[in-house]
């Protein structure tokens, strides 16, 4: 790990030179730019098979994936079934669902800075974290969103949503929360047909928008908002990506995974039992959907688009006997924006979420 840390510092050094070298003339507001030096893959592991969750880090400079990056940095495991992570400022926040905590780490050294655990009645069992405006928002599986101040690293507010909120996104002054009702599958996700629209200023739920059965994933580029409803796994109710426009919802196409990058919405449709996997891109300007010639993925687990390069990363389970294995390590593929394969890296078990080691630096 020391090696990786060293490389990370090395990788970051030129950026700091760039940031400091331009000293002539008057000093206007520095123009900020996003830089990225690697990919984090959150592996949820498999509690039943005694596989704790882990973090894989792919270093752009070395082109290598290092497994168990959290454990290497901290000497202990990340926890059980981590779900996702967000890099914000100098830190990364990792939602560890079954361990009921959010791990706050330094995004470069990956050393734990604080472990936030939840015992309160206003939310436990974090599923998803996102960062916005100096706060980190965490959806809690028992029906709340908690707000964490990124300076004090403590909870400073909570709002009831749900049931069983999953992913979230921010557009304008609102936080959108997918209420999956995932624990109520025996009753057909009866209460899980909505997205909560939470006003960020007052931190209250303004309304629940009806979106379709079992919404789990959300994406936004800051203005347009998309939700992915998983349906009830029946033919009548397939997984579908939908756009939320005001309080109205428009179905776009069948999809099981999605990622947004500027004016492009990438989505994958890999429903259970389907012989093929569809990869598509919706151009938000022209509203046209085109196919993406992606190959080499067995059973996609996650998709993300690198914010700087526009490259596409798709993680996958390995197959055993023709079925996705949730007990064996998976992998992640790196593609150019046109869908051509760049490289494959191995990951931990169940690589369910992908994010990037990004930073905002002055140009």
């Amino acid at each position, binding site marked *: 790990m020391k090696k990786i840390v060293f490389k990370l510092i090395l990788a970051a050094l030129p950026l700091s030179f760039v940031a400091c070298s331009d000293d002539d003339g008057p000093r206007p507001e520095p123009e900020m730019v996003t830089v990225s030096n690697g990919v984090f893959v959150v592996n949820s592991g498999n509690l039943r*098979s005694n*596989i704790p969750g882990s973090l894989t880090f792919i270093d752009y400079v070395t082109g290598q994936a290092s497994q168990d990056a959290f454990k290497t940095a901290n000497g202990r*495991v990340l926890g059980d079934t981590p779900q996702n992570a967000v890099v914000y400022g100098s830190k990364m926040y990792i939602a560890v669902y079954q361990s009921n905590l959010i791990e706050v780490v330094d995004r470069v050294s990956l050393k734990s800075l604080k472990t936030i655990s939840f015992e309160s009645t206003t939310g436990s069992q974090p599923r998803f974290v996102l960062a916005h405006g100096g706060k980190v928002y965490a959806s809690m599986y028992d029906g709340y969103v908690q707000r964490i101040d990124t300076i004090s690293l403590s909870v400073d507010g909570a709002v009831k949503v749900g049931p069983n909120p999953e992913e979230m996104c921010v557009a304008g002054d609102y936080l959108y929360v997918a209420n999956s009702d995932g624990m109520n599958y025996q009753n057909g996700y009866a209460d899980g047909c909505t997205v909560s629209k939470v006003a960020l200023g007052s931190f209250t739920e303004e309304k629940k928008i009806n979106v379709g059965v079992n919404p789990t994933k959300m994406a936004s580029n800051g203005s347009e908002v998309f939700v992915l409803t998983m349906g009830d796994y029946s033919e009548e109710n397939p997984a579908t990506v939908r756009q939320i426009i005001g309080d109205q919802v428009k179905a776009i196409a069948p999809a099981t995974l999605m990622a947004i990058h500027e004016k492009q919405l990438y989505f994958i449709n890999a429903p259970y039992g389907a012989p093929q996997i569809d990869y598509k891109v919706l151009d938000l300007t022209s509203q046209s959907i085109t196919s993406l010639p992606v190959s080499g993925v067995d059973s996609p687990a996650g998709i993300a688009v690198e914010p700087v390069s526009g490259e596409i990363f798709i993680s996958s389970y390995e197959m055993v006997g023709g079925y996705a294995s949730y*007990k064996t390590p998976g992998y992640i593929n790196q593609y150019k924006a046109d869908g051509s394969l760049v490289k494959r890296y191995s990951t931990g078990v169940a690589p369910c979420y992908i994010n990037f080691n990004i930073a905002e630096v002055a140009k």
Partner: protein
Amino acid sequence: MALAAFCVCLHGHAGASAAVPDSLRTKTDTVVSGRMLPEVTVEASSRKADRSTAPKFELGASSLKAIGATDISSALKRLPGINLKDYGGAGGMKTVAVRSFGAAHTGVVYDGVTLSNNRSGEVDLSRYSLDNVGSLSLIIGDNDDIFRPARSIASASSLVISSAPTVADVDSLWLTAQMRAGSFSMLNPFMKVGTSRSSGLSVNFIGEFTHALNDYPFTLRNGIYSSRERRKNSLMNSGHGEINLTLPTGSASSLTSKIYYYDNGRQLPGPVIYYNPQCNERLRERNAFAQTLWRATLSDKVSLRITGKFNWEASLYDDVNGRYPGGRLDQDYFQREVYASGVALWLPAPNLAFSYAADFAYGNLSSNLPQEVGPSRYTILQALTGRYRTGRLTATASLLGSIYLNRVQKGSEARDNNRLSPSASISFQPIAAYDWRLRASYKSIFRVPTFNESYFFHYGSTDLLPETTQQFNIGTTLGFSPARWLPRVALTADAYLNEIDDMIVGVPYNMFVWTMVNLDKVRAMGVDVTLSADVRLAASHKLEWNLNYSYQRSKPLTDKNSAEYGKQVAYIPLNSGGGSVAYTNPWVDLVVKAIGVGPRFATNSNIPDTRIAGYVEVGISLRRSLSIRGHLWEATFDIDNIFDKQYQVIARYPMPGRSWRLSLKFQL
């Protein structure tokens, strides 16, 4: 091994008849021409090599003492070839898988009737306390005991639990009362009271209760750190009552009946989750049954055995957690079954025996789940078995015809199944002067999908085929008395090849929804060895050694291109074994015992992170009996895991460290 030195009373008490192997029964039946023997002390057989044609490992009452068994799990661990899944502590579930087959392939026979669990297919053995167990035996494949119901040969192997026989004077009231206390706030009173009349009528009542906090400490290792933790949410209260009645129905027939009730309420500590000790799961299990068994020797050529049983079971699970609708999850399951069996044994010639068994069962399941389909199953089993036996040769062959018919109240039903399953076995004594036998056996059998596998909402699949198994075994048994100071040495060694195909496993739809498919294929090769010996040190000073060792190489062969192909199947140790020595003397009997299990993996792909370390667990047991004014008092003190070894059988379920228990028994 030891058909034990306990008294076998053919017209005795409920259950004892099941403890009597057919080899003995037939002998007595033939010898005395259908007359019931009063009480036969079977001392001789304990010195003989095992004559069983297929592996049979028996722990009778004296063996259970000699191995220092303190509870059912410590006894099961000493049976070779067993993979005991033990979730730890008094309340932890314990299921038995044999030679790489899943636990649902092990039939559990309790006092002559095979237990069923249509819902999960597995029987939790933690409910049987050793206090009332007279013998425990494991039969792998089909052996030469052919006077058995068809259901008891419808599984790959059988674990036969038989209630303790009562040895008491006729026409008296007898009573056994026992109090036990142990670590982690365990308290366990037990009482058995009954009477036997000279008419042959006998009746007894058993009652027991167990309270245990089970909050034992354990060491949690996490990377370079380790911390001392305690099991939480682990309390158990469990009660069990029985009435047994034996009624002579003629000079050569008798009826034994049992009414049984069991009620266990416990908290479930769940798996150890890193950084999160919160757990609120609870489970209450209730079981009531009534069974009756009529045995009759109709002539010196024909015997009959008729069994009937009604079984009711409830499994009431709840969990309190904000993530559930209404903050609470309640899953209540109810199972009922009626079962009837008839077996006829025909001895047309001195060396020849045939049996025909016909079993019928109807079982159903209901629950409070909104998507419950209300499944039921008719099972019709018929078995025809033949046996040829001389003093030196025993050969058996049998054919089992199975019909499983599935019905549901709503929705679609699982496939019906009809199959023929053969088995054959042979045992041969090469040299008449030596008590040395060779044996070989083959069995092909299957198990039908459980109700959970077929119907559980989303997860179940009604398209499933049965899991099929093939077993080949060759072995040898040897018994000899080399010296006066070494009056008995008994050895068994068996090698086997087991195959399982169409194994039912869960595969994901996605993270939340899984479904069941017939997928896995496993081949296992292994060796089981047992050795026992008595050493006479002096008059009334005796050592009894019991050793068992198993080697098991179990390969997943599902997918050549996958990471798990050819590795070792999850939870199967390559090496495991146990040993004990009992020192019997006029003062305090002492048993020192050890169990060792090699490292295992929690995954078929043998990911290094999922390795579970091997362990050796050592215990001692002290026992002293006293006769005070004609009444027997017995005190037993056990220390288990004396070196406080921290280990796990199932990953994330730590086992207790050092613990003690003290029992005081009184017999009127």
